[in-house]
């Protein structure tokens, strides 16, 4: 299949800019790019879901896409989900043909582990017998061992002549499995083929914004600096997790300390955060995982959202305070009276942070605080969390981003299927985490 000079615009935004790509059967193309670089649009065009404004596509083949967010009906069984995609074929036979293991098709999808759900999505796509398979960030919800299994499947498919396109921002993985590397940035192809080191790839993927060197996003553990300010503080805030789904493990949390809870998404993190939100009272700040749904009231202004935590409502004073916070947190907004829903994701997160940190909380529970944010916003959030810790707050960081956890965490727990591992030092975690995340003790 060949894409020639494909361009696609959405209003003033050029999502895909003059892209030409030649795909050959049997290759595994690693498409490396950040969120927002245009990969979703490009793949939608390749799959025939979207029409390009300019350019052409020749030699079209059947394409199947495995999306980042599952399109599975939780209440239906595996068999019903397969039937929905492909009526008339026996579920067991579909699974056998795909070569992927998934037992007992009468189980409800809601009862499956995240890895099994990912497998089901893959099986659905393969069942359509495509000549091209596009996988959009498939490893974001897989444990390291499951990712390896996926790579085997990809290799097997490629061997039968299918073109596999593997989209990911995790460079080491792409390097491991891809036969050809393509880098996309801001709608353009900046690299196609050739050999490059991980660092060089990382630099190509991201535009340099400041003098600081771009760190390659590799899953090697970091050594954490000793935290200033925490030495000598006594007293601890214990979080006793007594929710039914979580083991009654005590998580000691000291002021000035950042404890990271890592795990593949979907292993109980959301339930943990919600249960903490409902049970902890006092000067506790909560940063929700789903920014769009739970973070801000989109219909209300920035000032109103920030004032939600206050005791009194004084419109003018709230407006002034919001203006000051916009200044301090460098939030890109026209005015404090702007609707919160019209801000970009990064700026919304800043508003949430501003609201929560303004209360001088003693404990901060931050769930996936940098999800979907660009590099600048991410480092901003990290700096704010570090500063809050330095000021004496105790921070519980729930994240599926291992780099973030190792960069910030003084101690690490791994969460798997609703249970927490015992407390680990970063060094211990570096060794044990991959296994713990996959459920192998």
């Amino acid at each position, binding site marked *: 299949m060949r894409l020639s000079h494909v361009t696609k615009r959405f209003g003033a935004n050029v999502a895909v800019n003059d892209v030409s790509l030649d795909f050959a059967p049997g290759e595994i193309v690693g498409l490396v790019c950040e969120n927002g670089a245009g990969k979703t649009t490009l793949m939608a065009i390749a799959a025939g879901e979207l029409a390009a404004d300019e350019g052409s596509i020749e030699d079209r083949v059947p394409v199947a896409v495995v999306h980042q967010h599952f399109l599975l009906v939780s209440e239906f069984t595996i068999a019903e989900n397969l039937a929905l995609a492909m009526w008339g074929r026996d579920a067991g036979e579909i699974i056998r043909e795909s070569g992927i293991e998934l037992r007992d098709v009468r189980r409800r999808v809601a009862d499956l582990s995240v890895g099994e759900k990912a497998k089901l999505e893959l099986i659905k796509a393969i069942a359509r017998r495509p000549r091209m398979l596009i996988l959009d960030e498939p490893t974001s919800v897989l444990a390291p061992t499951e990712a390896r299994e996926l790579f085997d499947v990809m290799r097997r498919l490629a061997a039968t002549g299918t073109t596999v396109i593997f989209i990911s921002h995790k460079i080491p993985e792409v390097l491991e499995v891809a036969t050809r590397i393509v880098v996309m940035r801001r709608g353009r192809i900046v690299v196609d083929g050739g050999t490059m080191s991980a660092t060089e790839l990382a630099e190509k993927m991201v535009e340099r914004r400041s003098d600081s060197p771009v760190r390659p996003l590799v899953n090697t553990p970091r050594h954490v600096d000793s935290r200033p300010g925490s030495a000598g503080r006594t007293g601890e805030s214990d979080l006793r997790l007594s929710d039914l789904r979580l083991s009654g493990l005590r998580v000691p949390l000291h002021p000035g300390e950042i404890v990271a809870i890592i795990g593949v998404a979907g292993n109980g993190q959301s339930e943990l955060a919600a249960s903490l*939100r409902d049970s902890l009272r006092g000067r506790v700040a*909560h940063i*929700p995982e789903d920014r769009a*749904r*739970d*973070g*801000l*009231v*989109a*219909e*209300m202004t920035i000032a*109103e*959202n920030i*004032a*939600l*935590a*206050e*005791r*009194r*409502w004084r*419109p003018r004073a709230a407006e002034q305070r919001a203006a000051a916070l916009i200044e301090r947190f460098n939030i890109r907004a026209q005015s404090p009276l702007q609707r919160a829903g019209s801000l970009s994701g990064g700026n919304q997160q800043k508003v949430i942070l501003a*609201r929560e940190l303004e209360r001088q909380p003693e404990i901060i529970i931050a769930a996936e605080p940098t999800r979907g944010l660009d590099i600048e916003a991410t480092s901003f959030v990290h700096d704010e969390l570090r500063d809050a810790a330095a000021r004496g707050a105790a921070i519980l960081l729930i994240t599926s981003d291992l780099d973030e956890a190792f960069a910030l965490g003084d101690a690490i727990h791994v969460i798997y299927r609703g249970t927490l591992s015992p407390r680990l030092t970063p060094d211990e975690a570096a060794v044990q985490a991959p296994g713990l995340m996959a459920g192998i003790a």
Partner: protein
Amino acid sequence: MRARQLLIAVLAAFSAVALLALSGLVFGHGELLSILISGSVGSTFALEGTLLKSVPLLLTGLSVAIAFRAGVWNIGGEGQFLAGAMGAFLGARYGMIAALAASLIAGALWASIASALRLWRNAPEVLTTILLNFIAIHLLGYAVNGPLQEASGKYPQSDLASASLPASGELHAGIAIAVAAAIAAWFLLYRTAEGLRLRASGFNRSAAKWAGVNVNAQLVRAMAISGAMAGLAGGIELLGVTHRLFERVAAGYGYAGIAVALLAQLHPLGTIASSFFFGALTTGAGELQRTAGISSTVATFGQALVILVTIVFTRRKIA
């Protein structure tokens, strides 16, 4: 934003009346529109009637507006109205103030049954409030056919209430109370922290929860205030207009409140104008029945039209 809302409201009201007039023409009643207008605002007498009808509509409209703004589906205005009327009747023996207070409390309590069921048993309030309407109607029926029936025992109605609202001719002090309630509701929703939290819960319950709002407490408070408003409507209607209880004392005011609130775009101050419109519609419809024999249920029909036109143009979530 404000101008657009006003435009939608005017458009909705206009469309409803136009559609009514049109259907009148279709059914051979070309004079429908003119009777509606003359019967509602065409004379001092008509205007008086309109104002009197606007009062309960204003309050039930406030009831719905507050509830919907808080994200609570209170369709129980009819039953809360009746609870308020019964409460006012019982409290009247202690004076007018006591009667009014009793109507507020009765309405709030009746509504709180629904919020309690929602919190304890997860029963959806949209259904429980409607069911409570039916129960209230039958409770009233029992009362006026039984323990509260007038001494002479002739009709299913109560004796005259022991208290009443000060009045000048037909117009009673309830008008002032209703307008004051509208202003108070506006203040509550837009100038207090409680109102901010209520509105936030209505827009996005989940986000409000994460921001630290106790959404369950908000639900209970919103329901109680909403019920109190509807109850007050019933109390004022009793003390100012009907002076006794009888089976059809609520006359659809509760459900009409939904139309009033939506036309006012859920804005408390807007319900003042909106209730006047529907008061005119109801009074005019009464005149229609008297002079042209057209069922006064055209008013109900008109309410439905307004609701439908309004939500099509508003097109977003109700709160």
